[in-house]
């Protein structure tokens, strides 16, 4: 049974029930054409208006990740991202000559089917709106725990209207191209049906789910955009540790750690500290001080039983091991684990971080696999930062950012320019014909 929460621009809080996607697909197909007449500028204006509305909604702003979402969806920011992805946003509106009577256009792919992960509540909005910019219609499977937030986030679109070049455009028409559904992830038949309908499959999730989606039947022309399981960590170099900005860097690192309960693929789990004149113990004490300072701003939320048990167990292990060190709060405000093993530890989450001292930050190269997504850095020297980024991205890392920016969604993401992947690049070559 498919439960459908938005269809044809309307919201259904209890969910409409369908046995399959036939009706949903028919509605989306009918509405897809509306979007084709929207200039990209009008879409960006509608999204910009939307971002203004949610930025004024105090309740929704309290939801994790929403303040940054507002910033991300501002027209000026989206224009930068489109430029990075497509070079020229006009490619979305018509054939643009690229020289010698050769023209190219970024056409819609058609129906984009999204499988959204449940670890970051706002993830669905990023995925959907990038696809809307490409004028795709969207069938989106949202995990049960995120449906309420996604529906609350989408609702403002219904009443937005903007004028552009003497034409009126409505946010409801955008909504008509978004269908939010939920069904059991184990239902192979529904997953298979959804997969077969897709012109573009966008998948966010863990390894097990990814493998099961990958094996589903699909159109031969379908484009896959995969955001699979990834791992992230942070590096502090000697100069940064010895600088007066250390506390600021540590504060930024803490914001990366506390974001999304440390469940995002960009959340740091290990921090490598280059040996410096400041001892590991002193850095740790300053780290704890920062955690304590930021308690009030980032109160602990319920982590889930598994994460609680994992933190308790790893804490117990480090407390009982004679060659390891543990620093932790009474509750789950922070858990700092210090060991000498040079490795990327399995993620625990819930503000649990492994500190490791290394002789040289470039040593981390040995640990990198394509599974590493983001490396947060605190370095004082740009040249060294570029050299490090060059080495570690060569080994598999997708993204190197200063600490504090690790969990902020960006383009490219996971090595992919998402908007560019969500369009079909079409060409017209009429050199010498006319």
């Amino acid at each position, binding site marked *: 049974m498919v439960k459908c929460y938005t269809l044809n621009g309307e919201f259904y809080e209890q969910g409409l029930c369908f046995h399959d996607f036939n009706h949903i697909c028919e509605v989306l197909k009918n509405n897809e054409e509306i979007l084709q007449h929207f200039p990209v500028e009008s879409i960006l204006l509608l999204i910009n208006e939307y971002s203004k509305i949610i930025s004024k909604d105090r309740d929704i702003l309290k939801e994790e990740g929403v303040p940054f979402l507002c910033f991300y969806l501002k027209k000026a920011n989206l224009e930068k991202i489109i430029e990075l992805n497509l070079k020229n946003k006009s490619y979305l509106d018509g054939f643009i000559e690229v020289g010698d009577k050769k023209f190219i256009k970024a056409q819609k792919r058609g129906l984009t089917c999204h499988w959204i992960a449940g670890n970051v509540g706002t993830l669905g909005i990023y995925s959907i709106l990038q696809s809307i910019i490409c004028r795709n219609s969207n069938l989106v499977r949202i995990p049960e725990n995120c449906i309420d937030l996604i529906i609350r986030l989408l609702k403002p679109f219904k009443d937005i209207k903007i004028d552009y070049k003497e034409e009126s455009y409505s946010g409801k028409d955008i909504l008509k191209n978004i269908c939010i559904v939920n069904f059991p992830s184990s239902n192979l038949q529904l997953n298979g049906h959804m997969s077969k309908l897709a012109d573009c499959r966008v998948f966010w999730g863990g390894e097990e789910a990814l493998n099961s989606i990958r094996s589903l039947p699909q159109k031969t022309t379908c484009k896959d955009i995969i955001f699979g399981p990834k791992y992230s960590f942070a590096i502090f170099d000697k100069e940064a540790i010895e600088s007066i900005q250390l506390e600021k860097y540590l504060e930024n690192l803490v914001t990366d750690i506390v974001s999304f309960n440390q469940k995002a693929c960009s959340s740091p789990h290990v921090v490598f500290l280059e040996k410096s004149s400041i001892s590991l113990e002193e850095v740790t004490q300053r780290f704890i001080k920062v955690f304590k300072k930021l308690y009030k701003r980032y109160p602990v939320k319920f982590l889930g039983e598994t994460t609680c048990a994992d933190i*308790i167990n790893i804490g117990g292990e480090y407390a009982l091991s004679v060659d390891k060190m543990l620093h932790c709060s009474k509750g*789950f405000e922070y858990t700092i684990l210090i060991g000498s093993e040079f490795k990327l530890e399995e993620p625990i989450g819930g503000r649990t971080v492994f500190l490791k001292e290394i002789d040289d930050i470039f040593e981390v190269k040995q640990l990198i696999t394509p599974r590493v997504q983001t490396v947060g850095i605190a370095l004082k020297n740009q040249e060294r930062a570029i050299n490090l980024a060059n080495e570690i991205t060569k080994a598999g890392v997708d993204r190197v950012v200063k600490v504090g920016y690790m969990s902020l969604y960006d383009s490219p993401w996971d090595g992919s320019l998402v908007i560019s992947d969500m369009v079909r690049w079409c060409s017209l070559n009429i050199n010498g014909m006319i």
Partner: protein
Amino acid sequence: MENYNLLEELIFNKPFTLRQSDKEKILVKIFKEQLQNNKKNINIRSMYDKLGFDIKYFNSLEDIPYIPVNMFKKFDLYTCNKEEIVRVLNSSATTIGIPSKIYIDKKTSIRQSQALIATLRNFLGNKRRPLLVIDSEDANKNGSVLTARGAAIRGISNFSNKIVYAMDKDGEELKLNIERLKDFESQYGEEEVLVYGFTYIIWSKFIKTIQENNIKLNIPKIKIVHSGGWKKLNSQRVTKKEFSTTLGNIFKTKPSNVLDFYGMVEQLGVVFIDCQCGYKHVPDFAEIIIRDLTTLEEVNIGESGLIQVMSTLSSSYPAQAILTEDIGTLVGIDDCKCGRKGKYFKFESRVEKAEIRGCGDTFAEGEKRNG
């Protein structure tokens, strides 16, 4: 010198008589000495040092550093001389496939038996009765390593004058011996009898075979005590009520004669049996602290959290504060209608081990790295 008399008094007195405030004072006194002894173990000493725990100055049970139950799988946590260990208890290894190792010296073993008998007596009375064990005799083999099932059978058998094992081991499988079961019924069906079994084995082997073979039993004056294996049953969506009703119907007795007991191999001797009001009580020689899943502080009455079990019975391993992976609800203190004093609670479930982790789930590359 241990607070020996104090502890013996707790074990030999009726086990649910102390009011909470009095009990806490006594337990703090006993634990202070025991925790000092724990420091003989290098790992525990390391833990107390890292957490800045000063035995001299603590005065609240909540402040004692707890040992997560899984640590008994990873460390050799004995606090006596190695040569004093008379038995190693092994858990059922359900969670990560590695069994816990609980080191028992003679003193601990005796206290655990005495404590278990004192608690069971409070619920079952003094009378010895025929005991039907829904397991095979192999579960209670003699030897230096004993499983949780074996230990429980030994405890219950103190209340028996005759033991009959209802099952036989067939390779790795347990098979119900129907003939032996019917013999037990015809011989003792009119008497007061006891039945003990592992919850999961009763449900998956015993009840299944009884139903498949359409066997009817008639032993109305029965007390059925069962423990362990709820994790597997919860995954099959079997409720406690359904379990008790089904089992009661099989023996033609009231579901209230089916008594769930909560215990663990890491805290042998400390068992929590349902009272007539359906709640589990803490004996005077032990304590529970139910810790909130967000703050890890003790919950208020009516709230749920992780169950920490504290026991005074051990001199050979750190039983004073073990944090389980079980969820319970603190129902009340000192005021259960059954008359037992101290805290009383409900067992709710095992910690849910499957959770959404999304794209940040693991670093290991599938089986390749794990393997």
